[in-house]
């Protein structure tokens, strides 16, 4: 579904992603685990074309998308739920969700998806006419995920969806991700919280200062000594 092939990215002279190679098959949930500033966000931004790659290539659904603009990648079904939620604070919940469907040719007939999102997040339905800026962080995160789903993603990239949220909300979001995965959604989940990410995903990549340092199935990584000492705190 999505494939990073020896991707290198620079911010000015800073080489932030080194030969990143990773592959996510259709229907898989894969985690990208790393500390702050390890390159998770850069990897996802590069996937969407918000950041240019300096070498290597990026394939999505069998097509080289490295040189496509962001809106062209979005139109192909590659959807990012960005770090820090980035909801439209002056829009209501419904207006935010509708913006998610902006790129779709059938954007005037999105009632089905709207019902689906409100069904997944009943809390959003309660607040559908409320301005997004006046909601709590957890509700904004739900809104950001809902907005992503409105785009009818083929592959959903999530950048730290649980950052800074109360444990109970984290649980709620994990449940939703589980439901999406059960419905066959392809998900790439970037997370600092390794144990949570490993619970959610079937496979994971560990990224350290822009290098993939480990990869494997969630079970094998949970047993790995490095992971245990660095991320799981055992």
């Amino acid at each position: 579904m999505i494939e990073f092939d020896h991707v290198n990215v620079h911010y000015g002279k800073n080489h932030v992603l080194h030969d990143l190679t990773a592959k996510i098959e259709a229907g898989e949930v894969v985690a990208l685990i790393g500390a702050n500033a390890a390159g998770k966000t850069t990897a996802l931004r590069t996937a969407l074309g918000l950041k240019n790659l300096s070498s290597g290539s990026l394939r999505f659904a069998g097509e080289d998308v490295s040189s496509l603009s962001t809106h062209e990648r979005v139109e192909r079904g590659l959807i990012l739920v960005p770090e820090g939620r980035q909801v439209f604070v002056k829009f209501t919940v419904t207006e935010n969700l509708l913006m998610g469907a902006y790129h779709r040719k059938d954007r005037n007939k999105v009632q089905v998806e709207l019902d689906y999102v409100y069904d997944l997040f009943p809390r959003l339905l309660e607040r559908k006419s409320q301005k997004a800026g006046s909601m709590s962080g957890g509700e904004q995160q739900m809104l950001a995920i809902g907005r992503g789903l409105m785009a009818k993603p083929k592959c959903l990239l999530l950048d730290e969806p649980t950052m800074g949220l109360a444990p109970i909300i984290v649980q709620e979001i994990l449940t939703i991700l589980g439901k999406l995965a059960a419905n066959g959604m392809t998900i790439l989940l970037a997370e600092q919280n390794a144990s949570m990410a490993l619970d959610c995903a079937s496979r994971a990549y560990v990224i350290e200062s822009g290098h993939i340092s480990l990869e494997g199935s969630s079970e094998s990584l949970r047993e790995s000594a490095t992971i245990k000492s660095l991320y799981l705190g055992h």
Partner: protein
Amino acid sequence: MGQLILGQLLNGAILGTLYGIIALGVTLTFGITGIVNFALGAFMMLGCYMAWYFTDGLGMHYAVAVLCAVLVTSFAGLIADQTLFRFTRNNLVNGLLVSIGLISVMEGAALLIWTSTPKNMEYVLPGVFSFFGLVVPKMKAVVFLVLLGVILATYAALTRTWIGRAAYAYAQNPEAAELMGVRTKILQSGVVVYSTGLAGLGGALYASLYSIDPTLGAVYILKAVEAAILAGIGSVIGSLFGGILLGITEGVGSIYLPIAFRDAYGLIFLIAILLFKPAGLFAGRK
């Protein structure tokens, strides 16, 4: 005295929509491209001369001439965007320098082609409306209604259409809008061109009321920026009210105070309002 005040209120409101249409361009351009386009006054001037040339020079019907003037101004706006403003996105200082340079070029060209002698268009719509002892030239009423209509239609389009919502979303969070699939480059160019078109419309209508000269845009862009700040930059409906409020302040002010200082009244009023509402009257609204 009452009639004098009422008359000035009306005159101020009409002039205010002219400020408002330019202010709308200022506010939209700032919200989407992050620069203040001071050259909008020069585009207004271009609209004036085009309307004058198409009617008195080529003998077109005035309504057609206005439409053509708007098209020519928008096209000039497109060229300016692609050759200049494209490189000043979200760079206030560069945008300022480029737009001031553009003013010099456009005013210089206008002086060269049309000289500094003011031009007066033939009357388009003679006659007046009189009611309650007030007299309003018909043409002024038409200009007022057209500008009011265009500003309100723009507001409606921004809130009700997909492209309008995309623009508003972009103004709130450019990157999130891009992640929704908004074509940001086209949106930015579109807004620059649209605001030059609005300025051209203001100019084409202005030409039917007052005499025109190459430097008339300077006063209008200053008033428009004032109106936009008065309203709270980013507010579409606010730019209309800001413009009208400014027009009325000047109109009524010049009854009681020396008319030579009329341009200052609006500024004093602006300072007074910003003292109490630093973000502008309509801050936080659409």
